């Protein structure tokens, strides 16, 4: 049987709120000085103006860090990650990826290898977004971290790339939820995922 433990359900939704706030306010901060040849549309941003966006960004940052920290600590200590997200083998990923393309998507007890890779990769992107964000916030106090990202200007691009990866994950994640809507009940109420 596969039920989402209550701590997973709570941290999942708090993380969703934090991430959406961080992404939308981050887009408005980006717009103040665009790195590339485009800006994000105002309707997709949060904060109203640069000062508001930064206030949102640095408030949501704490929610992400505290909530994400609890989730990562819990997942590592209880063996949840070891059981549910690992191992990830290249051969399995390739097999499950082909199955998914042929609509032979198995959604039973555990996560398939593609899902595991996807979730672990996204957690990694979250950690990268956090570390690069920290290096932009404190390029003097934490200048070793900023230097590790190749300096302030490169760290901006790393932070942007991590955000892009997370948004990409979100799009696929939401598309799959639309295909298998029972997952939305499972992550909210903890009911067993429907078997096929």
């Amino acid at each position, binding site marked *: 049987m596969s039920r989402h433990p209550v701590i997973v359900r709570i941290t999942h939704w708090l993380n969703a709120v934090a991430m959406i706030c961080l992404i939308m306010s981050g887009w408005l901060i980006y717009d103040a000085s665009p*790195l590339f040849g485009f800006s994000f549309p105002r309707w997709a*941003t949060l904060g109203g*103006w640069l000062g*508001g966006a930064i206030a949102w960004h640095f408030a949501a940052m704490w929610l992400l860090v505290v909530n994400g920290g609890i989730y990562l600590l819990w997942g590592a200590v209880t063996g949840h990650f070891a059981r549910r997200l690992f191992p990830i083998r290249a051969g399995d990923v390739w097999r499950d990826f082909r199955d998914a393309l042929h609509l032979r998507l198995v959604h039973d007890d555990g996560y398939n290898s593609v899902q595991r890779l996807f979730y672990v990769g996204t957690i990694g992107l979250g950690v990268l977004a956090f570390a690069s964000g920290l290096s932009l916030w404190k390029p*003097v106090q934490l200048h070793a971290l900023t230097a590790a990202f190749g300096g*302030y200007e490169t760290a901006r691009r790393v932070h942007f790339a991590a955000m892009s990866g997370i948004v990409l994950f979100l799009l696929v994640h939401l598309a799959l939820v639309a295909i298998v809507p029972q997952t939305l009940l499972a992550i909210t109420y903890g009911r067993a995922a429907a078997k096929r």
Partner: protein
Amino acid sequence: MNRLQASGDRSIELLKVQRRLLLRSGLSLGALTMLTGCDLTDGDAVDRVLWTMSRWNDRVQAWLFDPTRLAPTYPASAITDPFPFNAFYPEDSAPEVDGATWKLELSGLVDHKSPWTLAQLRALPQQSQITRHICIEGWSAIGQWSGVPFRSFLERIGADTRARYVGFKCADRYYSSIDMATALHPQTILALDFRDSPLPDKFGFPVKLRVPTKLGFKNPKYIMSIFVTNSNPGGWWEDQGYNWFSGS
């Protein structure tokens, strides 16, 4: 009612600025409400949370601040050319201060309050730095500033260096303030020169505070007066919602 949530010596300012941020952040509140499904119609409560978090971030940054940690320095070849102008008005509106009649006024918790002329400041020992200026907008640029180490200036005027804040008032109606720990940092200087010549009008003639451990907007230009105080003087941007400490 906001007064209850506001703490310390800034309650009056907070009262004013909470309303300002409310008006501005309210614009995209609808977007968040739709996405999260939360009913965040009470913009006042949201603003209070944002201000509380900003004050919390002030405290965390003051704690993170290492008074001996130096901002990275760069070779002259790394200097950004042309160095950008930035203010809350266009470059052609930058004030033109007359250096011959200008005097730096001092007030607050300072023993010697006689005003300083430009020549007197130039007669003091000078220090030069090539550091990265980071704007709250995200961009950065490397520049070279020279002038009087602010710590030695504060000691010379008999400032109470146990006080909490140093405030600045500028010729362009701009104002700002920094914490005493940052004011005493070895790289905080009263800059008189940019590269090898006196500050041009656009970069803050006659005096600009150069603080490489803070964001650009905490580096006031066209300084007319300096004061030492225990009540937070806020700032032009800070009172509208920019994080007050804004340390790098």
